[in-house]
């Protein structure tokens, strides 16, 4: 058995869980949940758009927690966990904005509306986290890069709820909420479909996260093996990179 921490454990079971749950969720969304009274068929976008949003935001908060651990323990693995989490959340976030825009076009005829506070807040959060990668890339020293990235992840993570609060308050009370969310009295069938979709999306996030972590770990292991077998000349220098790299000594 290896003495190192492996990231790809239980990956097969996880991905199977993801496939089953997500498929079941979407199937429930289309075949079991009733048609929405106000919006009709296009309300079905809700079942993919909102779970993505919730999971992406939780991902950002998780990244913040990993960043706090990194600052506390100086263990580079926490930095990698935070980095991968933010990357995944950004990708999901792009999906949220695109699906939200499609929904807005279907509902109101415009590709973007300012009336939906959650979508607007999400845009602000997305713009903020989009600077994470350029920030990392602009700091050469890897230890400092990791430390500053963690500070950013902590501040940004704390910012997320504050931002949502502020944007929501900025909407005037008289304006009707465009999209029904899980809060506003969903009928039970819709609730079930939504919950299953949310679980499936969360499972997807965890699966992809582990996948990415295992991949980065493998790269680092290959590199270290190459150095051990061929000496330092066999290894190509990495140059500047924005990604955290795992050392070989864990």
């Amino acid at each position, binding site marked *: 058995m290896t003495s190192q921490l492996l990231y790809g454990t239980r990956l097969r079971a996880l991905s199977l869980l993801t496939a089953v749950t997500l498929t079941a969720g979407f199937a429930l969304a289309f075949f079991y949940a009733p048609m929405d009274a106000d919006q009709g068929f296009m309300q079905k976008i809700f079942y993919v758009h909102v779970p993505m949003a919730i999971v992406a935001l939780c991902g950002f908060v998780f990244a913040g927690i990993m960043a706090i651990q990194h600052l506390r323990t100086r263990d580079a693995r926490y930095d990698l966990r935070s980095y991968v989490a933010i990357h995944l959340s950004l990708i999901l976030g792009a999906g949220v904005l695109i699906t939200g825009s499609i929904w807005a076009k279907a509902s109101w005829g415009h590709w973007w509306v300012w009336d939906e506070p959650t979508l607007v807040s999400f845009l602000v959060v997305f713009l903020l986290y989009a600077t994470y990668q350029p*920030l990392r890339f602009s700091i050469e020293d890897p230890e400092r890069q990791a*430390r500053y990235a963690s500070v950013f992840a902590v*501040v940004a993570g704390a910012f997320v709820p504050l931002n949502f609060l*502020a944007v929501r*308050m900025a909407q005037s009370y008289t304006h009707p909420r465009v999209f029904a969310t899980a809060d506003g009295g969903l009928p039970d069938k819709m609730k079930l479909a939504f919950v299953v979709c949310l679980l499936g999306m969360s499972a997807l996030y965890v699966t992809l996260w582990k996948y990415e972590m295992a991949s980065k770990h493998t790269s680092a292991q290959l590199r270290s093996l190459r150095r051990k077998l061929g000496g330092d000349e066999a290894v190509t220098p990495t140059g500047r990179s924005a990604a955290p790299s795992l050392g070989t000594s864990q």
Partner: protein
Amino acid sequence: MRRAVSALLRKDLQLELRAPQAVPAMALFSITTLVVFHFAIQRGQVEGDLAAGVLWVTLLFAAMLGTSRLFVADHEEGGLDGFLLAPVDRTALLVAKAISMFSYLVVVEIVAVPAFAIMLLGPTPGAGALAQLVLVLVLADAGVALVGTMVGALAVQTRARDLLVPLLALPLLIPVVIAAAKATTPLLAASAGDVEARWLLILGLYDLVFGLLAYAVFDFLVED
């Protein structure tokens, strides 16, 4: 620690008074921005929500200018290293820089707000509205100063600091913009109203959260 803060603060303010760089630039930039606004929005007079928007965008962009410069002198001329060697709580630097930034903003506003009133503002706010405006400015400036100090400290160590400062600071400052603009709108309206308390609460909450955050993470930003 109070002595450290006052020493640092005195150094910064003296430097700025002796060779004024940041504050004149910020003030001039804000007036230029007002002129640009006049041409961009094609209006001779603004009021209400448009007035609040023009004012806050102007102040915000001037603040971005100042934030980029905040730590540069210390970083380049070794003041930061000197500070790190001293047996002083790192938070003193945070407090001193935040107060510096706040005072720069105050000076800039003393120039920019009357300029705005003369150049673009339609209705003339009464004494009560002005007092409330000062309150909003104080609360918002505190938030901008805190975020600016954190982002400035972070960006000064990177290679692309002028690019990163606005990219990082502006999204973080969106709640301030929201609350400040909403708060200022009734003050600058033709039929002047009062500030809604909830926006002041939001600004206060923001200042509190970011104050605590800055206190928690600042040490990690100025380590070697």
